[in-house]
């Protein structure tokens, strides 16, 4: 006869067994602290990095910021040199990247998910695109040099903003495609069925239900991929971002797209290669500038997400 067979036995054993036992869930507690530790490490690492950059670049950021932001590169001295041309160049390159990567990437994703869904071809393409996302950026630089600078020189005019932007577009294209594919796949099938059920054509289902539902995720992903493009130096050096001072002359804004250019990451590299501590200060200050730029782009991503994510 077990304890649980009498009312008294049940009551006694309840008093015994229901009580909290210390150390009952050690593994769970340990896991939680492990997670907290990892989070602290990750954020702490970033904070230290940011702190070091700001401290190192403080002389420029506090004393010489306006000059630094509004002047081009100068070989004469570190205090004369600025990042203006880099900011403009980076933004121009990012613009070209977006113009090529976003429409092509989203269109590819729509085709893969909505038209070629489940086919062997779609699976093959998707697998390859996922692999392409892991290809080092320098390889895209070589591709850009061979294809956009040389082969397509009639269109890009050689080592220009357009060639640089197209190279980075090729680099971020896989990311744009993958995030868009995931966003489209995440649209619930009940939404599609509902639209088909009242007699919508495929185009109507896509344009009025599926795309609007997926848009906020797609835009967030693509804008973030632009932020990544903003920070790339290696491929741009290969496709001709200048490391020195540029003379634009009286070229207007449109003409600068087919002219020589530089970009912030390239300038940082150049600053860092110069001898002397004051050049190092410039490199740190330029790093802070590029971080702010990337944060601004991410801000745009967040704004777009909130804008498209209606409060239904």
């Amino acid at each position, binding site marked *: 006869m077990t304890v649980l067979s009498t009312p008294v036995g049940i009551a006694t054993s309840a008093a015994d067994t229901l009580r909290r036992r210390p150390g009952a869930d050690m593994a769970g507690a340990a896991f939680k602290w492990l997670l907290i530790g990892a989070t602290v490490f990750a954020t702490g690492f970033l904070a230290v990095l940011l702190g070091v950059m700001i401290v190192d670049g403080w002389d420029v950021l506090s004393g010489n910021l306006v000059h630094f932001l509004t002047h081009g590169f100068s070989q004469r001295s570190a205090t004369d040199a600025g990042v203006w041309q880099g900011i403009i160049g980076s933004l121009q390159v990012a613009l070209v990247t977006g113009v090529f990567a976003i429409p092509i990437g989203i269109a590819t994703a729509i085709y893969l998910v909505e038209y070629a869904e489940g086919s062997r071809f779609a699976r093959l393409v998707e697998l390859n695109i996922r692999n392409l996302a892991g290809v080092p950026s320098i390889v895209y630089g070589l591709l850009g040099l061979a294809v956009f600078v040389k082969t397509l020189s009639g269109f890009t005019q050689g080592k220009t903003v357009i060639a640089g932007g197209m190279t980075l577009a090729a680099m971020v294209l896989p990311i744009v495609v993958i995030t868009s594919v995931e966003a489209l796949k995440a649209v619930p099938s009940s939404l599609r069925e*509902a639209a088909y059920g*009242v007699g919508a054509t495929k185009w*109507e289902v896509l344009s009025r239900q599926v795309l609007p539902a997926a848009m906020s995720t797609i835009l967030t992903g693509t804008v973030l991929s632009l932020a990544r493009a903003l920070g790339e130096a290696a491929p741009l050096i290969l496709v001709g971002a200048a490391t020195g001072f540029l003379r634009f002359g009286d070229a207007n804004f449109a003409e600068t797209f087919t002219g020589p250019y530089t970009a912030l990451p390239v300038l940082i590299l150049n600053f860092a290669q110069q001898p002397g501590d004051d050049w190092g200060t410039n490199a740190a200050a330029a790093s802070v500038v590029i971080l702010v730029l990337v944060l601004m782009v991410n801000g745009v991503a967040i704004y777009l997400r909130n804008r498209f994510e209606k409060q239904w």
Partner: protein
Amino acid sequence: MTEERVTEEREQVPVSTARIDVSGVTTAATTGTRTEVNTVFECSGVDVYYGDFRALRDVTLDVAEHEVTALIGPSGCGKSTFLRCFNRMNDLIEGARVEGTVNYHGVDLYQAEIDPVEVRRRIGMVFQKPNPFPKSIYDNIAYGPRLAGARKSALDDIIERSLIRAALWEEVKDRLKSSAYGLSGGQQQRLCIARAIAVEPDVVLMDEPCSALDPIATGRIEELIAELKTDYTIVIVTHNMQQAARISDMTAFFSVQLNERGTRTGELVEFAPTSHIFTKPDDQRTEAYITGRVG
């Protein structure tokens, strides 16, 4: 024309036809022998395959106009699959294939020159889980008519009429512009019914429309179905046998058979007036299922 029909019949049809009989045997459907009716669907020898897998075998049945036809049976018996043959919803599933003929008013729906989009406009559908669009109540109902080219000035009327018909108007008339997601599950499902009938279909297919709802919401949908059949032909899949008994005129019982290859294929066991199925079924398997011995 439809407008007139709707208002006219709303006055004539007493609400009591929607009486719900919990004893399990329907009252509406046991009014004696079936009178002469027009056939909407004639299905013969319908097989459905998903790739190599045969999900449904050799279904032959007719659906009569202005009747509620219920499809019942255990899980996996192919009743939802069969329902989706009526508006070519199976087309959307990769690798799905329908063989045999599904005639709609004498037209074979699976001929090459039939446009599935037009089919779905005439043969509306309500799904298992309420699936309103992430839009306002108004835009949910307006979606179908807009696609069909309804003029903007006509929309307000269409929306009011559809919501009245779906017994939702009184609850939502003051918040048509607010989100459909703010409605309760039962209200959302009635919204989906309103959305389906807003394009003035001929048939409304319902795929377990009450399975996600509580008994009170279920009761309201059942009342609604009983009213809707004056205007529409309704085919409904249900897990709930009492529901089939309460609301349907004809019942098709599907069962599932294990093949030698280990796959399961659904088949139609018995198709008869609901009163017949629930009182003296011809087939042993039907009887076993409805008396709760199997399934």
